[in-house]
């Protein structure tokens, strides 16, 4: 497969920042989530213990994932679930289409599933003449606009209510200029109700699959997954293989972490357990690898499979809040996206591990303790090793390292640079290539370095070389 164009995060981010009002709204909306999360976390004793437990459960589960997957399959089959295995996105899409076409399904409602976004299921089904309606409010908004989600939990967080009002006016015939959230939600509800009633099958994602029961759990705040699987008789649930947990009792650990990390809610409004199909109906579970077992085989990046897609790392990331989900050019954005995407294509996503100030907030906020910022640092090393760094960066680091290896050279270069910075005219220093100086002043340059100073007038600290 030909490599796709390189994602230029910095350029995409600069574009997003161009609209100052919008970027501030985006930042504040997400920070609001983070602040609510903090309140919920501080009021739950043993939060850190829960994180540790969750991390250990995931580590254990990943260490024998194949066994647990088979256990899940056996138990699910016993419950009457039909389990399918997909090696990659296209197999997944073919399987889902196969299930639907065999049963002459033409209309499908789908609740939120980042996996189906990752596999581009919607366009695939639409090409084959099947209508797919996203029923999560945010997903429906971006679907109407023919956009991908910009955030894994709040797909339309990049849009203001005025933009949503305009979209609904255009597609759903709401009043022109309306931007009242209650009114717009009501319009969406009426529109979606018809779709629910007309659907012949429901597709959902999976938040947790439980090996020892064969059950799956779907968490939503809107109840759309429940409607979408109660009205039609056919339920297709799509999941990445990393969504597995060993035991039902482990679920209590993750349920306490998930919604608190996202919005600060103690639990999602709907947490629906599916143990087999409804009477007279069908339940299909599609287990998808699509690159996950490759990550599982990597000592450096295995922990990224712990992710429960809570979005806390996106909400806390100071870069994500100011650059928006689209700047990452991949289905999953933010710190976890920057960790996962280069595994898919290191060349295409080479700038993502650098779209990070290494502040470490993502690692501390993560409910399953993925060391995200460390993984991004490891990716930088990988990218350098694979010679994917820009030549300018590579040469600059080579040169700097050479200078810094020799104290005399470092001292000399320091002197020359300080002297020239003090001597050259301002217009020459603040030239077009001086990226620092576009928005920032350089510090006042001292005539003497610290080592010059203490060699001279100050007799302490002792020279000790």
């Amino acid at each position, binding site marked *: 497969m030909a490599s796709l164009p390189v994602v230029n995060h*910095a350029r995409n981010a600069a574009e997003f920042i161009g609209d100052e009002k919008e970027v501030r709204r985006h930042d504040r909306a997400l920070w609001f989530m983070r602040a609510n999360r903090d309140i919920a976390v501080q009021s739950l004793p043993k939060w850190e213990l829960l994180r540790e437990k969750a991390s250990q459960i995931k580590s254990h589960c990943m260490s024998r994932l194949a066994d647990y997957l088979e256990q899940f399959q056996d138990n699910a089959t016993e419950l009457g679930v039909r389990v399918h295995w997909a090696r990659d996105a296209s197999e997944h899409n073919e399987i889902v289409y196969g299930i639907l076409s065999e049963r002459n399904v033409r209309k499908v409602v789908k609740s939120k599933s980042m996996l189906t976004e990752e596999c581009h299921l919607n366009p695939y089904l639409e090409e084959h003449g099947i209508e797919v309606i996203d029923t999560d409010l945010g997903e429906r908004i971006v679907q109407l606009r023919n956009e991908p989600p910009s955030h894994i939990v709040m797909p339309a967080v990049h849009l203001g209510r005025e933009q949503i009002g305009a979209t609904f006016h255009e597609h759903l015939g709401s009043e022109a200029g309306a931007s009242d959230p209650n009114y717009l939600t009501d319009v969406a509800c009426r529109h979606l109700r018809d779709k629910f009633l007309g659907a012949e099958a429901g597709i959902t994602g999976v938040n947790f699959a439980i090996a020892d029961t064969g059950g799956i759990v779907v968490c939503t705040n809107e109840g759309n997954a429940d409607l979408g699987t109660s009205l039609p008789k056919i339920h297709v649930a799509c999941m990445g293989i990393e969504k597995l947990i060993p035991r039902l009792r482990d679920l209590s650990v993750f349920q306490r972490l998930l919604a608190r990390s996202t919005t600060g809610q103690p639990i999602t409004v709907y947490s629906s357990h599916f143990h087999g199909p409804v009477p007279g109906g069908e339940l299909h579970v599609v287990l998808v690898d699509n690159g996950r077992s490759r990550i599982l085989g990597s000592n450096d990046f295995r922990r990224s499979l712990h992710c429960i897609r809570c979005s806390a790392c996106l909400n806390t990331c100071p870069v994500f809040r100011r650059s928006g989900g689209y700047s990452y050019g991949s289905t999953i954005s933010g710190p976890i996206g920057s960790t996962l995407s280069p595994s898919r294509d290191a060349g295409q996503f080479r700038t993502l591990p650098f*779209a990070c100030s290494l502040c470490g907030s993502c690692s501390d906020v993560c409910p399953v303790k993925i060391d995200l910022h460390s993984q991004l*640092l490891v990716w930088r090393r990988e990218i350098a090793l694979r010679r994917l760094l820009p030549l300018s960066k590579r040469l600059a680091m080579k040169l700097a390292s050479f200078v810094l290896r020799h*104290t005399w050279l470092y001292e000399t270069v320091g002197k020359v640079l300080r002297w020239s910075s003090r001597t050259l005219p301002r217009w020459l220093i603040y030239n077009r290539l001086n990226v620092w100086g576009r*928005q920032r002043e350089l510090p006042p340059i001292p005539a003497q370095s*610290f080592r010059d100073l203490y060699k001279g007038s100050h007799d302490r600290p002792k020279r000790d070389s």
Partner: protein
Amino acid sequence: MGAVSVGSQFPQRIKLTSMTRIGLFIPCYIDQLYPHVAMATVEVLERCGVEVYFPTAQTCCGQPMANTGCTNETRPLAWKFFETFRDYDYVVCPSGSCVAMVRHHYDEYLDGTPGFIDLKEKTFELCEFLTDVLKVEGLGGRFPYRVGLHQSCHGLRELRLGRASELAGPSYSKARTLLELIGDLEITTLERADECCGFGGTFAMSEEAVSCLMGRDRIRDHLQAGTEVLTAVDMSCLMHLSGLIVRDKHPIRVMHVAEILAGRDPAIVSLPQEPMSNEKS
């Protein structure tokens, strides 16, 4: 070799003998651009009763190369650092970021080298050296200003110099503990206690737009909080923030925490240079 003079202020608290040798690790950019911060560091340590040595062979810990992923360019610098400081009993540095480099990111280059674990354990950021090793309980002096404490990320989340706002548990901050020992100093309350300033090394250049917006947002927070003097344990964060403050002409002075602890007068040190009027952006 000079004897280490144990000051009269805290003699019983210091478990240092006259043979204890403390190496001063001055990050390259502080050496070249902020010599007064290094001087203030020396002064604070001396006022706390310890004498330090400055091995002049030192240059840079290698963090810029490591954070770019260039391990081959980092390795010789990690070795140089190790060779320079291995024989000291303590290594003290006025930068959280550079200490985090030694303590958390040198394993890749020096793992298994005899003396390396010892080096990691004896290398301290200035504030933690004062609170954890010297156990300073008084500093004297007064600083009648409203101080905004910027929590530099590597100090906070790698060295754990304070509790990061993401984590549950009791709040603490080593830099804050020290600042509160100074008379008349008031610490301002921020809306976002520890958001990153956006410096991030080469990030400041390669992601200039995001970096500068992050910095401006931090500054706005400090303006609303009434910060008169902005401080941090890392001069790199302050170089970025100061660059924006001076360009945007905000009434905030910028000082490294060592300068405040050393009793410097904000009206005299760290004087921002006026941007020329024709170069405003």
